[in-house]
């Protein structure tokens, strides 16, 4: 059963990865829990528990297709398993996962025509289910988000869902912090009309 609950916890376990949960593992870890002793299987297991769900959520926001979102994150973890011998460190591994997810979502978008399937379905859902209240809701925002240029969408999702700093986003996307700022400002401006309608 997939509950509707969990919105609040999504923020907590959201994208501020490695800080709390995994940090704890590192701190309490004497020798047995030292990530440097992990083999690739163990790294995948630990990082899956801590980050799989939030990564799928991020990919879903970027892609708008649940099955495709999960595929992208599956690929990221398989890649991590391969890359672990040279990463050897949770923070770098988490960065790797985020990067794979964002890149995978972008090439996924090129491959599938999900944006074209996503926006109308979401818009219809918003119209259908919110007709009773007459209020635009988050699905309308998501539909508007899907219509933005890819970079703007990535920056907005990483900034406002992932809570990443401009510097972190810049590192992840391979662009300058100034460019991140520009994309964020333009994206937010483009969403202004719809955001002014939601509660």
């Amino acid at each position, binding site marked *: 059963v997939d509950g509707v609950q969990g919105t609040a916890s999504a923020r907590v376990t959201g994208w501020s990865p490695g800080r709390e949960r995994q940090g704890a593992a590192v701190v309490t870890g004497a020798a047995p829990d030292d990530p440097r002793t992990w083999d690739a299987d163990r790294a995948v297991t630990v990082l899956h528990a801590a980050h799989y769900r939030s990564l799928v959520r991020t990919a879903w926001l970027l892609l708008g297709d649940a099955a495709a979102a999960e595929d992208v994150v599956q690929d990221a973890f398989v890649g991590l398993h391969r890359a672990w011998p040279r990463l050897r460190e949770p923070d770098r591994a988490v960065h790797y996962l985020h990067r794979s997810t964002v890149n995978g979502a972008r090439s996924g978008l090129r491959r599938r025509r999900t944006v074209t399937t996503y926006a109308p379905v979401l818009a219809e859902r918003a119209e259908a289910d919110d007709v*009773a209240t007459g209020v635009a809701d988050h699905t309308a925002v998501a539909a508007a988000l899907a219509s933005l240029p890819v970079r703007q969408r990535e920056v907005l999702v990483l900034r406002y869902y992932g809570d990443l700093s401009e510097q972190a986003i810049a590192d992840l996307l391979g662009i300058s912090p100034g460019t991140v700022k520009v994309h964020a400002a333009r994206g937010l401006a483009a969403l202004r009309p719809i955001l002014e309608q939601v509660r």
Partner: protein
Amino acid sequence: MSPLPDDELAARLRAALTRQAADATTSDDSLGRIRSRTAAERGPVRRWLPVAVATAAAVVAVAVVAVLLGPASRSGTGTASGPTAGPTSPGPTSSDSGAPSPSPSASESASTSPSSPPGGTAHAVPAYYVRVFEGHARLYREFHRVVTTDAGVVAASLATMLAAPADPDYASLWPVGTTVTALTRTGAGGKDLTVVLSAAPTGFADVAVQQVVYTVTAADPDVAAVTVTYPGGSSGAVGRVVDWQILAPVWVLAPVDGAHASSPLKLSGTASVFEATVSWQVARADGTVAASGAAMATIGAPGRGAWSVSVPLPPGTYTVTAWEASAQDGRVTWPDTKVVVVG
């Protein structure tokens, strides 16, 4: 009105993204899938035995859900899109636009329900109903026009759900005469809803609970958890079961049953079907087939996509049917049928 400051915009975007992200679903055996791929790259599996057991347990759990909720031949991940594609909008609409057909009985019982405050304006309220096919129960949605206040929409939706559906093929799992004896909101911002009903469901208790959950969360998207209590049972606080487990695979949203329409007749709906293929036919009053074909939904199962097709027809009375052709043997499964008058 002065424009919103940027930080208020940002706060709204944050809230919308967080809520949207919560719709994302992950498969139960996600780690098992990763492991089977990494193991394949590396040769024989050595250390995953406890995990293999856990994964097997997850598979069993999925199978149990499948038995409770219907044919779950679809495996893997769920879709994140909820019930989709209601072509309706508030206000008067013509009958061929897929608007909710006014159902006098339902509207009346809803608007005269003690839980609906007097006065208010016309709302199109959502209500979910059920059909049973080959021993499985799945949900369908209708909109009904009800006069109520904004605050009364949830109560009006429930009253509509407990009254007669517009499509005679649908039914409620709650027996005729069931009433809402209490509707209370708790939790921060009243996001948790408790619904107390006067009678127990006639069967498929899990689906009956989801009938209520889908209805109230469609009426008020801010509702986070719903507790459905009835004589002899309570659901505990639950949310929507992922749509591909509970919604009927094919919905015809337009035309509505009994509609008058002009040619070309536009059929549309949503579907979560194998290879995104929705089969349809239009039959004349004498049962002969006037037109038939297949339409593509915008996404295949387990996603739920929108589909539509336009059919030129001479004046007359027709029966429209759309269904999923079984992936095994092509037989008709989950047909949704509407009678329509063209002319």
